[in-house]
């Protein structure tokens, strides 16, 4: 077992104990949100960081999950059976939608793909707004949930469990033969084709897996609020995932989780500071600035940058015994990402 695995296990144990050590309700809720949006950002990172697909419509899967649970709990009954039914519904719906969206758009040039996903997510938003009889539009609906999930500590632990499972899944997945092909697609799609892989299939499968996991995050999000409105389909949700992924470290496993923590901790503390000065109310502006600074000076995000530092240090210590280990690889993924974001990859 290597050091980083041990560090992660210690971290998880610490997080499990946290609710029993301190009893601030708001911290517990904040941590729960970090876990949930961390899962959402990880699902986004599978597309952006590991496959090189830029989507501006990821919120649609999040929203499908949130509305599935919300509507089923409200219009049927808040029982475990219906809860399970909502989870299954979400998985099926997100799978179908992500498959169809992928089928329609993944053959397009990446810019057009980004635009189409943006438009389709917009359609979901409009639909949720217009179908007022069901959704009450932007006012949203409140709903009841099975008692078990109402306990903040239990729900905190469940969210942590989801995060850990998602992390373990992605860790395995990105190191699998399939995951390696995805990374190759990010690097050089044409060459993957000429090696005999059906690139389109890989992109669709990545899109479906990413969409389904985003849907699960959406369920947890809605359950944590016991409320859902049209904002779950909004572009801000997608941008949150994008920002968390890039700040934390695109194409790294832990980056999106760290990004989620940073973005939400910052939002949380800035809310308090808003009393001090109005500028802190405009956290979007501040985040815009942080975001630009990160992209300019730490293009590989926090995790990527730290990894590069460690590699350099290890190299000096080892006297260049092992040239360019696996660690610096992660950071150069970010170079590729920068290119993708600049739209130079398909050229």
């Amino acid at each position: 077992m290597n050091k980083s695995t041990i560090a992660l296990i210690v971290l998880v144990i610490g997080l499990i104990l946290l609710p029993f050590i301190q009893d601030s309700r708001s911290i517990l809720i904040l941590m729960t949100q970090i876990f949930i949006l961390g899962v959402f950002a990880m699902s986004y990172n599978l597309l952006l960081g590991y496959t090189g697909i830029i989507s501006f419509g990821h919120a649609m899967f999040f929203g499908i999950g949130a509305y599935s649970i919300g509507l089923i709990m409200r219009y049927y009954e808040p029982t475990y059976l219906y809860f399970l039914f909502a989870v299954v519904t979400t998985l099926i719906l997100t799978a179908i939608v992500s498959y169809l969206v992928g089928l329609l758009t993944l053959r397009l040039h990446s810019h057009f793909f980004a635009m189409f996903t943006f438009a389709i997510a917009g359609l979901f938003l409009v639909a949720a707004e217009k179908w007022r009889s069901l959704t009450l539009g932007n006012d949203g609906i409140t709903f009841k949930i099975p008692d078990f999930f109402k306990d903040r500590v239990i729900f905190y632990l469940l969210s942590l469990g989801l995060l850990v499972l998602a992390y373990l899944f992605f860790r395995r997945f990105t190191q699998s033969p399939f995951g390696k092909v995805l990374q190759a697609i990010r690097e050089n799609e044409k060459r993957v084709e000429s090696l005999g892989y059906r690139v389109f299939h890989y992109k669709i499968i990545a899109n479906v897996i990413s969409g389904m996991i985003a849907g699960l995050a959406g369920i947890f999000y809605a359950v944590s609020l016991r409320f859902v409105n049209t904002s779950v389909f909004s572009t801000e949700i997608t941008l949150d995932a994008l920002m968390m992924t890039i700040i934390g470290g695109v194409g790294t496993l832990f980056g999106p989780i760290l990004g989620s923590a940073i973005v939400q901790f910052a939002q949380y503390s800035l809310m308090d500071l808003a009393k001090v000065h109005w500028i802190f109310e405009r956290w979007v502006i501040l985040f815009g600035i942080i975001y630009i600074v990160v992209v300019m000076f730490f293009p590989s995000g926090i995790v990527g940058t730290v990894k590069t530092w460690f590699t350099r240090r290890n190299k000096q210590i080892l006297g260049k015994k092992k040239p360019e280990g696996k660690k610096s690889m992660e950071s150069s993924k970010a170079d590729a990402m920068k290119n993708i974001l600049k739209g130079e990859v398909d050229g």
Partner: protein
Amino acid sequence: MDTIIETINVTKSFDGHEAVSDVSLKVSKNELKSIIGPNGAGKTTLFNLLSGQLKPTAGEVLLSGEHVTSLSPTYRTRKGIGRSFQITNVFPNLTCFENVRLAVQSKEGVYYNMLSHFTSHKKINDLAHEVLSTVLLDSKAEELAKNLAHGEQRKLEIAMLLALDTEVLLLDEPTAGMSIEEVPKILEVIKQIKETQNRTILLIEHKMDMVLDLSDSITVMFNGALLADGKPEEIMANEQVQTAYLGGLYNESS
């Protein structure tokens, strides 16, 4: 001898300019055919037509008698036409080993395995290391492809083709940019593959002297057209080739 690759009157034009014009070519099984010609003669374009990167404006491409003209590169590779690229075309942010391993993985038909760790496929890893050492790159296995010197990237490019282990190998100027000492070694590797594994090899070379004793036959291209096709001695003796290619232009363009 059996024909494995055949083109029937293939033409490829870019905005009216015919990069390949009306080329009919037959390649026999297990032969090593070199394609020579000055820069811009259409050699790479012909390869693109054979491997599916480009679709011909007119004409047909056949593999073992079967029409493959409309097949995508993916399927042509699966059917047995592998290629390397003149302009190095690897995965820059993956290690050398991973670059080659992806080719072996495809050859072994491990396409959609999502849950096993890639290192658990021992056979694939062993094969990848084997190919890397064939092209003298084993010491660079863990190096990122983008950090390799140009000549090393060329070797990686060849390694990826060898790893695919296809029936037909299309090599586009494999030794261009390699250090002078390494060129004979790589040519030797190519010869070995042909002899020990019964492969059909098409080799584009800019410099004819390099391939004279390696090739079973030589095709000369000039301005998109097929100028001559025959045994190396015949080509050497061919007057048209002498004047058009070996005489003036060859020296200018090399």
